[in-house]
């Protein structure tokens, strides 16, 4: 059972019509926890980002609550994303076809899939989102810890240079820029998932239609098809 283009949990659930399991339950839950944390972080973060948005802190019970809740959720985001990272990083490694995909970005946006190469489980856009999220969340957690006033005494002895005020000023700037970055990536990710019809169900029900797989991730579909065992009596189709 080779997994060059697919993750261990992926498999073809049914053949008439073809449905393909793309994300198992645990991955989906993990994704949604990450998503929710990111959204809450964005809202609470934005309330501190610009005075005009400070009213958003009202959603959390005021600025004082945001002050400890934001970093708390930050930790949750980091941990939960880390789990996602473990599950997905291998298939997000760049491959040859990604370069050609990117070269045809114009076609991508207009939706003429035919001009695009066959792809594995993730296209270059999705890979960009993955690695962008990874990088930005790392930056956010590091700079976040540096500017988290209450916890500075805990780690100061180990990295005193990071506790100095000049360092924390830079951390504040980087945190703000990274936050803007991650919100932009977030918008891209959400929009792409909506714009590419039939994608959302992957993260809600866990499966996609065969056609979706064929259209967007054909190499992924081929591999799953190969990996599928011969239909003997014990494999009820509705497996």
């Amino acid at each position: 059972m080779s997994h060059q283009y697919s993750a261990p949990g992926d498999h073809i659930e049914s053949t008439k019509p073809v449905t393909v399991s793309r994300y198992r339950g645990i991955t989906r839950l993990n994704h949604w926890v990450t998503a929710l944390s990111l959204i809450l972080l964005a809202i609470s973060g934005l309330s501190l980002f610009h005075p005009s948005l400070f009213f958003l802190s009202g959603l959390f019970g005021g600025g004082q609550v945001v002050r400890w809740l934001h970093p708390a959720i930050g930790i949750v985001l980091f941990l939960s994303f880390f789990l996602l990272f473990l599950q997905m990083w291998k298939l997000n490694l760049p491959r040859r076809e990604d370069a050609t995909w990117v070269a045809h970005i114009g076609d991508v946006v207009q939706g003429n899939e035919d001009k695009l190469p066959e792809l594995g489980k993730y296209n270059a856009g999705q890979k960009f989102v993955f690695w962008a999220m990874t990088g930005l969340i790392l930056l956010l957690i590091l700079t976040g810890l540096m500017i988290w006033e209450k916890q500075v005494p805990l780690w100061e002895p180990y990295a005193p240079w990071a506790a100095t005020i000049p360092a924390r000023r830079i951390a504040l700037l980087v945190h703000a820029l990274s936050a803007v970055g991650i919100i932009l990536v977030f918008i891209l990710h959400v929009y792409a998932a909506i714009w590419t019809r039939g994608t959302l169900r992957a993260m809600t029900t866990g499966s996609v239609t065969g056609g979706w797989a064929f259209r967007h991730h054909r190499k992924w579909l081929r591999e799953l098809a190969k990996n599928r065992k011969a239909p003997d009596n014990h494999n009820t189709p509705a497996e």
Partner: protein
Amino acid sequence: MNIDLSRRSFLRLSGAGVAATSLAAMGFHEAEAAEAAHVRDFKLATMTETRNICTYCSVACGVIMYSKGDLAAGEKAELIHIEGDADHPTNKGTLCPKGAALKDYVKAETRLTHPRLRRPGSDRFEEISWDEAFDKIARAVKDDRDANLIEKNADGLTVNRLTTTGYLAASATTNETAWATWKVVRSLGIVGFDNQARV
């Protein structure tokens, strides 16, 4: 990482949580208006002023005590603050690090509040009444004086000298206390009588 929910913010959180989930709330209700800029209430308003002299060094800076309640009018007076007296010619309202903190000397936790007695060999003080204390002192001093007062010296001259009871007088009591103390101590014939002039 401790999430220390002070009671007030907990209520606001739980309340807000409900609001957040209701979609209607997504209409971004009006956030609480920021509290108007205000300075702390001036804590000396309506206090009773009393002129006094700092108890520490011999510059004798003039101080003003601010108390809640007027002692002179027979009320109980609780000391709130002490500050230099700008009218005093020596310190003109200034005070040193000791004088500026006089209030917390008057209200120190280790101020004595009850007469206490430590019995021979005991490892603790026991609270006793003023009467018990004075009876013990009077009895002890009279017995010691009657036993050890030297009425006449070897040459038969009247000396009335008591050396087995000694008295070490203070450094910050008033002249009036000093005079009352001098009278009592000398009437007993005490010669081992000294004060804090040297240390």
